[in-house]
């Protein structure tokens, strides 16, 4: 695992010595900040009106601000994560550095986990910097802490799933644009697959809705921790990391 750590450090160095991490994180924060601001401003406007009209109830900060903010953050992640993962293998394949790397005593798993961990750190930093939104909310509106924690847990698991999928796609091509386009398409497909539930028949519909990345996120953003959702995301990660490993190893036996 020593090589994994070396690879992890190198990948982090590349993310933070080039503009990649800064640009992606900044755009993410700008957009999510704007969405948070809109939701919060709308909420405060509704609250003001409600104060003047006694009898209007059911205004809830979790539902009106947190829930849409988490939802929007997940959409921005959908757009941004392929940009973080696209280079991980494609760049090295194109430059030929992967050939040299695999002539060192490094196992494919070590290489994979080094890269996965580095990308997770960038993602974690990105997510961590949004702490300001719940903090501001907490200053003025005293929301429940529970849904905030579960919302972040959900985003974290979903982001990990995006990274696993993106890594797999990146290991299949040497073109970074192709990697980004396919990752984006595949994530969006998994995101929306639940939509066909309504007309796919009861048995298939249930399967499709269970496959949906979005469906499993819903309960997190409402403050519910369902083990089914956690297991779904973990399985998603394991599956795609496993396929990535196989795709890397296949170089050694494929004629």
């Amino acid at each position, binding site marked *: 695992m020593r090589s994994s750590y070396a690879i992890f450090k190198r990948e982090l160095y590349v993310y933070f010595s080039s503009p990649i991490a800064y640009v992606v994180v900044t755009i993410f924060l700008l957009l999510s900040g704007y969405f948070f601001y809109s939701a919060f401003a709308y909420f405060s406007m509704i609250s003001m009106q409600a104060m003047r009209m006694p009898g209007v109830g059911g205004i809830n900060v979790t539902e009106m601000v947190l829930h849409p903010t988490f939802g929007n953050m997940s959409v921005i992640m959908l757009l941004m994560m392929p940009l973080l993962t696209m280079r991980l293998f494609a760049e090295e394949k194109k430059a030929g550095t992967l050939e040299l790397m*695999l*002539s060192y005593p490094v196992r494919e798993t070590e290489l994979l986990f080094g890269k996965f961990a580095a990308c997770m750190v960038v993602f974690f930093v990105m997510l961590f910097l949004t702490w300001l939104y719940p903090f501001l909310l907490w200053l003025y509106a005293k929301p429940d802490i529970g849904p905030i924690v579960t919302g972040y847990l959900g985003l974290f698991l979903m982001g990990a799933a995006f990274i696993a999928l993106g890594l797999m796609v990146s290991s299949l091509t040497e073109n970074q644009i192709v990697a980004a386009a396919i990752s984006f398409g595949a994530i969006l497909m998994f995101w929306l697959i639940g939509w066909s539930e309504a007309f796919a028949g009861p048995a298939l519909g249930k399967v499709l809705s269970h496959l949906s990345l979005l469906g499993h996120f819903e309960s997190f953003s409402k403050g519910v921790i369902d083990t089914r959702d956690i297991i779904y995301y973990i399985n998603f990660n394991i599956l795609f990391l496993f396929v990535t490993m196989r795709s890397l190893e296949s170089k050694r036996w494929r004629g």
Partner: protein
Amino acid sequence: MIEVDCLTKYFGSVPAVVDVSFRVEKGEIVGFLGPNGAGKTTTIRMLNGFFPPTSGSARINGFDVFDRSIDVRKRLGYLPEHIPLYKEMRTEAYLRFVAEVKGVPAGQRQREVDRVIEQCGLRSVRKKFLGKLSKGFQQRVGVAQAILNDPDVLILDEPTIGLDPKQIIQIRELIKSFAGYKTVFLSSHILPEVSMICQRVVIINEGRIVAEDTPEGLTGKDKTKVALEIKAPRAETLARLRAVPGVAAVSAEARPGDHTGRYVVEMEQGKDVRDAIVQSIVGAGWSLLEMHTLRLSLEDIFIRLVTEEQGKE
């Protein structure tokens, strides 16, 4: 030690390497020679486990390169043909990274990096970005990463390509210094270079091995030629030279308006008649201005081997 048995590689239906077998003993430096596209890089890539052979097998230090890849790679230093480097890293940081990946213990890492920086003459570019280095320095960084962690077996694909003459000499000296305790297998299409560094040469053409011998053994099979410069009338000189026993052929180089003539004498195989030639010239009262042996370059040998091979088919 490198043992290669009947290695064959097809890309689709196109044969790249066919039935290649050779051995490199421990401590030996062997050159792998062939024109571009002969299958050198393909063979080398199979040796480092980059892709598997279609058939046949290869072992490095007794480990099969396919089944025991990790054991092979632990003791292997590899320099690819176009050295792929992480352009955004600095020389020293890159070498530290390679040392860590190769499993050099943390306590020895800096010392090991300093050693290869010294050996490859990289001190002046320690802190420079790899992408900004000249081709020669990049190549030397490539050699440096290959010899990190002191591997027993070195596989070098065109190690001196893109270097200036002074750097070539440095790298050659470095490779020569491994003789006796490292197993070195290096490919090249520059033939004199191989004869300078290597104890043995394997020649490959169109995916097949056409010869395997010492550089001397390869050159010894050909007739020796001597170039002469003599101050004398041409026709008489030619006749006199042809009369010397052991001379197979004489050719003259015309140089109008000049009394000195240049001649190339080809001797019969295994005979040295230089002494007799000198006696004959001096005996006639002429002046022998210059005499030197023309060494057959490996280019000549290569062309001969390849044409022989084609003749057989």
